[in-house]
C-alpha cells in the first residue's frame, strides 16, 4: 500500500495541510486569547481606578459605600470586588471568603458562585492603611469559549486528515486504473505483440500525452522491426542467390573433374561468385559500422571540392571507356567529415551514374556551398528513378526491376545514406530532366 506513489503523496499533502492548519489556528487562538485577556485587564484596572479615587477622597467608609452602590446598581454579573482589612475580615464586596493575602498582583482565583465553580482574574491592590482591595472579573465564560475553540480545531484537523487520506486512496485507484492500461500494453509488447496501442481518453491530459508518446514510440519500434525483418529477408535473398550459384558451380566442377580445363574454368567462376558474396557481406558490415556511429573518430576538416576532383579523376578513364563525358565543377565546400567515407559515398554515386547512363551521355559532378550546407551533386543523363521508387532505392538491397540484370549489390545508395546521416546530412534524389540528380547535402563547417 505504501509503495503507491499517489498514496504517499496524498499522505504527505495531508500532513502538510494539517500542520499548516495547526499553525494558523494556533496563531489565531493565541492572539484572540491574548486580546481578550488584555481587554479584561483593562476593564479591571479602570474599575479599580474608580474605587481608588473614592478611597483617596473619602477613606475606607467612602470606599465601602462605593463598592456597595456599584455592586447594587450595576448588573454586571462578572465583576468581583472585595475589600479586606488587615485582620483579614471582609468589609465589602461580593466574595464569601477573603482571597489569599500574599497573592501576586495579578492572579487567578478559583471560586464558587451561585453553586457553580468558576475562575476569576483578580488584581490585588494594597491600600495606604494596609487594607487590601481585590478587583477582578469572572472569566469562566471566556475559558469555556477557549475550550470549545480548541476542541473544534482538533476535530476539524482530524476530519481534514481523514478527507486527505480518502482522497488519496481514491486518486490512487483512479491512477492505478489509468496506469493499468499502459502496463497492459507494455506486457503485451513484451510478449511480442507490437501492434497493440494504449487507448486514449481524448481528454488531452498528462496521461493522454504520455500514452500518445508511448504509441509514437511503439510505431517507431514497429517500423524498425519491419526494417530489420525486411533487411534480413533481403540478406537471405541476396546472399542465397549467389550462394546457390556458387554451390551449383562447385557441383558442376566436381562432375567436370575428368577434364582439367573445364574443372579449372568452373572453379574460377565459383571463386568469382564467392568474391561477390564477400563483397556484399563487406558492404553490409560497412554500413552497419557507419550506422553505429563509431566512425566519428576519423572526422577532420575536408573540402568536398578536393574529394570530388579526386574521385572524378579516378572514374574519368572508366567514363571515357563507356563513351560518357564526366565533368567536374568544384567550388570550395568545406565541411568536417571522414574523407574516406565521403569519397566512398561519392564513388558509389558516380559508379551508379556510369553504370546506368547510356553511351554518349553526360555526368556532372559539382560541389558548392549553400547557406549552412555544402552540397555535392552527381547528375547523369541516364533513365533516372521514378518518383515512386526514390524512397525505396535507398533501402538495403532494393533494386529497380530494370537494373536487376546488371551487376551490383543493391547496397550502394544505402551506404551513401548512412554516410550522409553519420555527418548529420541527407541524400536527395531528383529528376535531372532527363536523368537522375543525386545531392549529398552535409552541414558546412562553421565559420568557413
Amino acid at each position, binding site marked *: 500500500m505504501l509503495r503507491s506513489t499517489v498514496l504517499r503523496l496524498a499522505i504527505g499533502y495531508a500532513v502538510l495541510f494539517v500542520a499548516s492548519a495547526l499553525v494558523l489556528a494556533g496563531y489565531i487562538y493565541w492572539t484572540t486569547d491574548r486580546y481578550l485577556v488584555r481587554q479584561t485587564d483593562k476593564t479591571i484596572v479602570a474599575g479599580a481606578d474608580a474605587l481608588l479615587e473614592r478611597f483617596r477622597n473619602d477613606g475606607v467608609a467612602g470606599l465601602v459605600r462605593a463598592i456597595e452602590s456599584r455592586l447594587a446598581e450595576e448588573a454586571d454579573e462578572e465583576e468581583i470586588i472585595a475589600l479586606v482589612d488587615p485582620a483579614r475580615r471582609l468589609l465589602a464586596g461580593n466574595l464569601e471568603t477573603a482571597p489569599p493575602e500574599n497573592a501576586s498582583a495579578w492572579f487567578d482565583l478559583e471560586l464558587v458562585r451561585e453553586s457553580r465553580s468558576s475562575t476569576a482574574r483578580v488584581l490585588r491592590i494594597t491600600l495606604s492603611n494596609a487594607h487590601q482591595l481585590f478587583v477582578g472579573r469572572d472569566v469562566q465564560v471566556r475559558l469555556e469559549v477557549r475550550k470549545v475553540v480548541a476542541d473544534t480545531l482538533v476535530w476539524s484537523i482530524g476530519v481534514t486528515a481523514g478527507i486527505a487520506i480518502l482522497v488519496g486512496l481514491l486518486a490512487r485507484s483512479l491512477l492505478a486504473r489509468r496506469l493499468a492500461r499502459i502496463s497492459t500494453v507494455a506486457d503485451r509488447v513484451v510478449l511480442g505483440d507490437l501492434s497493440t496501442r494504449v487507448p486514449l481518453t481524448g481528454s488531452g491530459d498528462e496521461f493522454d500525452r504520455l500514452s500518445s508518446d508511448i504509441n509514437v514510440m511503439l510505431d517507431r519500434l514497429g517500423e524498425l522491426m519491419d526494417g530489420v525483418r525486411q533487411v534480413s529477408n533481403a540478406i537471405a535473398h541476396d546472399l542465397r542467390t549467389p550462394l546457390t550459384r556458387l554451390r551449383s558451380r562447385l557441383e558442376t566442377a566436381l562432375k567436370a573433374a575428368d577434364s582439367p580445363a573445364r574443372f579449372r574454368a568452373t572453379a574460377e567462376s565459383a571463386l568469382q561468385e564467392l568474391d561477390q558474396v564477400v563483397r556484399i557481406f563487406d558492404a553490409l558490415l560497412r554500413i552497419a559500422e557507419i550506422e553505429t556511429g563509431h566512425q566519428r573518430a576519423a572526422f577532420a576538416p575536408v573540402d568536398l571540392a578536393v574529394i570530388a576532383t579526386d574521385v572524378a579523376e579516378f*572514374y574519368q*578513364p572508366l567514363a571515357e571507356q563507356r563513351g560518357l563525358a564526366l565533368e567536374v565543377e568544384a567550388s570550395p565546400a568545406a565541411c568536417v567529415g571522414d574523407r574516406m567515407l565521403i569519397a566512398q559515398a561519392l*564513388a558509389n554515386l558516380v559508379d551508379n551514374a556510369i553504370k546506368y547512363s547510356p553511351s554518349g551521355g553526360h555526368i556532372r559532378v559539382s560541389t558548392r556551398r549553400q547557406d549552412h550546407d555544402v552540397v555535392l551533386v552527381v547528375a547523369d543523363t541516364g533513365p533516372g528513378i521514378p518518383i515512386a521508387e526514390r524512397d525505396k532505392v535507398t533501402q538495403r538491397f532494393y533494386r529497380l526491376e530494370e537494373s536487376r540484370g546488371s551487376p551490383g549489390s543493391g547496397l*550502394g545508395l544505402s551506404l551513401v545514406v548512412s554516410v550522409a546521416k553519420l555527418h548529420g546530412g541527407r541524400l536527395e534524389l531528383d529528376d535531372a530532366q532527363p536523368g537522375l540528380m543525386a545531392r549529398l547535402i552535409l552541414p558546412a563547417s562553421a565559420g568557413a
Partner: protein
Amino acid sequence: MRFLIVEDDPEVARFVVKGLTEAGHMVEHAPDGREGLYRATGESFDALVVDRMLPGGIDGLTLIETLRRAGNVTPVLILSALGQVDERVRGLKAGGDDYLTKPFAFSELQARLEAILRRGSTKAVETVLRVADLELDLLSREVKRAGKKLDLLPRELRLLEYLMRHTGQVVTRTMLLEAVWDYHFDPQTNVIDVHVSRLRQKIDKGFARALIQTIRGAGYSLRLEP
C-alpha cells in the same frame, strides 16, 4: 626465403604453408601466440604472417608489439577477420607492415608479402628508376622509353612509379588502389584495370616487348615480357 606463419586455423595455415612452399619458400607454422612469439624471437625469419586473433593468451597484436619492443624489425603481415578501417589502423600502429582481411586470395597474400619484404631493402635514395629501357626520373618527373619522352598525367606517373618500385613482383588491384589513390574501399567496378590499360597504351604501345603484364587471377606486374 624463410617465413613463419602464426595461425590457429589449421585449414588456413595449411593453405598458406602449401602456397608459399610451392613458390619455393621455407615455411614454419606456429598454432598459437605463445609458440609464435617463442619462435619469432628465437629464430631468424624473412617475414612473419600473423593472425590477429590467436588462442593461448597472446594475440597477434600483443605478439607484434612484444617483438617490436625487443627491437625485432622482421616485416609482419597481419591476417584478420576484422576488416574495419580502425582495426586496420590499430594493426599498423602495433607494428604490422601490412594488413590483409580474411577471406583472401593467395595471390593477394603473396603479393603483399613480397611488397613488405622489398620495403626494407629499397630504402636507399634513388632519383631515377629504371626497368629495361624504361626510365622514370623522380626529380624532373620525366618518363622515357628507349630514349623517347612519354607524356603521363600525374596520377599515371604515380601508378608507374609504384609498379617500377615493385618491379618483377605481382601487385594486386587492391594494393594499387591503396597505394596510388589511398582509397580503402571497394570501387565496385574494375576502375583500376582501365587505369592500367591507359598506362599500358602510353608505355607499351609501339614497342616490341610489353612491360606491363597482366597476371591472371592476381593483378599486374612490371617486367620485360619473356
